[in-house]
């Protein structure tokens, strides 16, 4: 155990952890929203993220941004991010909504038992991952190097890189926007109402199918944004099975914060990202994933409902 190493690299490990945790948090929103409304773990959500990542990659390739190119000048970087986020969020949202329509809605109309939903979710996840796997020959694809990570400002021992600032800022903005939408808008109230009591919501005139569509749409959009952020990190590689581990961690983050709770997803994501990176400092890179899940299991022993514990319905502004 390398305590000195952890202390020495503490600022860097923390910032890297927050950066990765922010991406977990954005993906975790999709799990949490769908769970809040349907009490369903949408295991296919990891593939929603993966498809967003490929959508951005293919769009960039189509536009002539190629791997190993020189770091792009600011103008074309911004353009690439703009078209990339539209492609990723669009493809992810479309995927999420299609999964709902094709896989889950028919089960709902037949009042299928929860186990049928669970198997369908796992099945949908495999179909999407394997489908892209066949199409891409199961090869990893490096992302074009759009942004050279560099330190943009320093506070004591804390060196903030441009990618860290972008990822964390975008995540916080997306979170605030979503939180406001859910707590203040009419449709957001509809989402909370269905999460709290579906039958009574119907008595208020809430169209449940529309609310379900909306949560899959929002979850997909957020996963798309996460995919784009992932792509601009220096580790960004697209592969057909990339969703699996990130999806699992995002799901863990959602459970850690309290599944069904939007703010819990943010807290859980950031906490998981930071803990993982401290583990890297303490025990070495090999222990990263190990520690994340040990943390989850231990925390659930003491707080079975997660850190913030409440449902989406009860989450208040």
């Amino acid at each position, binding site marked *: 155990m390398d305590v000195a190493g952890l202390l020495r690299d503490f600022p860097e490990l923390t910032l890297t952890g927050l950066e990765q945790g922010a991406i977990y948090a954005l993906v975790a929103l999709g799990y949490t929203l769908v769970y809040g409304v349907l009490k369903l773990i949408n295991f296919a959500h990891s593939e929603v993220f993966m498809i967003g990542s490929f959508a951005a990659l293919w769009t960039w390739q189509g536009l002539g941004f190629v791997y190993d190119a020189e770091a792009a000048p600011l103008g074309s970087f911004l353009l690439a991010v703009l078209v990339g986020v539209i492609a990723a969020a669009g493809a992810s949202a479309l995927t999420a909504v299609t999964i709902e329509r094709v896989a889950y809605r028919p089960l709902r109309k037949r009042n299928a038992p929860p186990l049928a939903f669970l198997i369908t979710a796992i099945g949908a996840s495999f179909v999407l991952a394997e489908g892209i796997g066949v199409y891409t020959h199961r090869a990893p694809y490096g992302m074009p190097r759009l942004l050279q990570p560099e330190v943009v400002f320093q506070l004591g021992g804390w060196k903030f890189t441009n990618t860290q600032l972008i990822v964390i800022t975008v995540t916080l903005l997306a979170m605030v926007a979503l939180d406001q939408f859910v707590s203040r808008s009419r449709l957001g*109230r509809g989402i909370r109402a269905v999460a709290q*009591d579906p039958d009574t919501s*119907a*008595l*208020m005139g809430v169209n449940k199918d529309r609310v379900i569509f909306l949560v899959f749409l929002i979850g997909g959009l957020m996963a798309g944004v996460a995919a784009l952020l992932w792509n601009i990190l220096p580790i960004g590689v697209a592969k057909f099975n990339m969703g699996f581990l990130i999806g699992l961690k995002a799901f863990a983050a959602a459970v850690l914060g309290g599944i069904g709770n939007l703010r819990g997803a943010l807290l859980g994501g950031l906490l998981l990202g930071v803990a993982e990176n401290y583990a890297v400092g303490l025990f070495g890179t090999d222990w990263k994933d190990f520690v994340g899940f040990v943390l989850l299991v231990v925390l659930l022993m003491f707080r079975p409902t997660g850190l913030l514990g409440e*449902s989406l*319905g009860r989450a208040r502004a």
Partner: protein
Amino acid sequence: MLLEIENMTVAYGRIEALHGISLTVGEGEIVSLIGANGAGKTTTMRAISGIRPLAGGSIRFEGEDISKLRADRRVVQGIAQSPEGRGCFPGMTVVENLEMGAYTRRDKAGITADMNRVYGLFPRLAERKKQVAGTMSGGEQQMLAVGRALMARPKLLLLDEPSMGLAPMLIQQIFDIIVEINQQGVTVLLVEQNAQQALSRSHRAYVLETGRIVKSGTGQELLNDSSIKDAYLGVA
């Protein structure tokens, strides 16, 4: 007739809960549906609102068959319900719950006016606008559920056990308010175990026993009916 139910059957799986009931509610009336636990009163209300499908028969509202209409569309047509066990959204404030009642409406000014009307009927709610419903007393939640149903500005108001779990003084009060709402022009279909109160305030009433309507008449007729007295009014 505002509401006409003909030979309606409702089943839970293979078990039939309503065996073909027929009833009508005329515009401007207070009609109550009384009966023991498990007679099918709540099932009837849920079927009218569309959250329980019909196995047979039909429901007509303002002459149109709504038997197959989605629950949320029925609210738009003018049917609102305050469900059994209050069913307030526990994590929402009083204001948010009332706003949920007006979910299908877009007329901001009208919604604000109706909210003030609800506060007029239930001054208690006006004092607790920002309180989360889950932390309020049973009586307050009951008022909120009734007020919330009014926020839809319904033509037909369905009230399922509005007096359940309330202190005797509050029961009087809630029935007074039901009459007041009715006098403001809202038709009311009321499900009650408190038969005495319900019958004395209703124009007409139906008696439901194990999924069948066994008796109907004006409120006064049923109050004086000896078999009703025995079974529901607790007087020998």
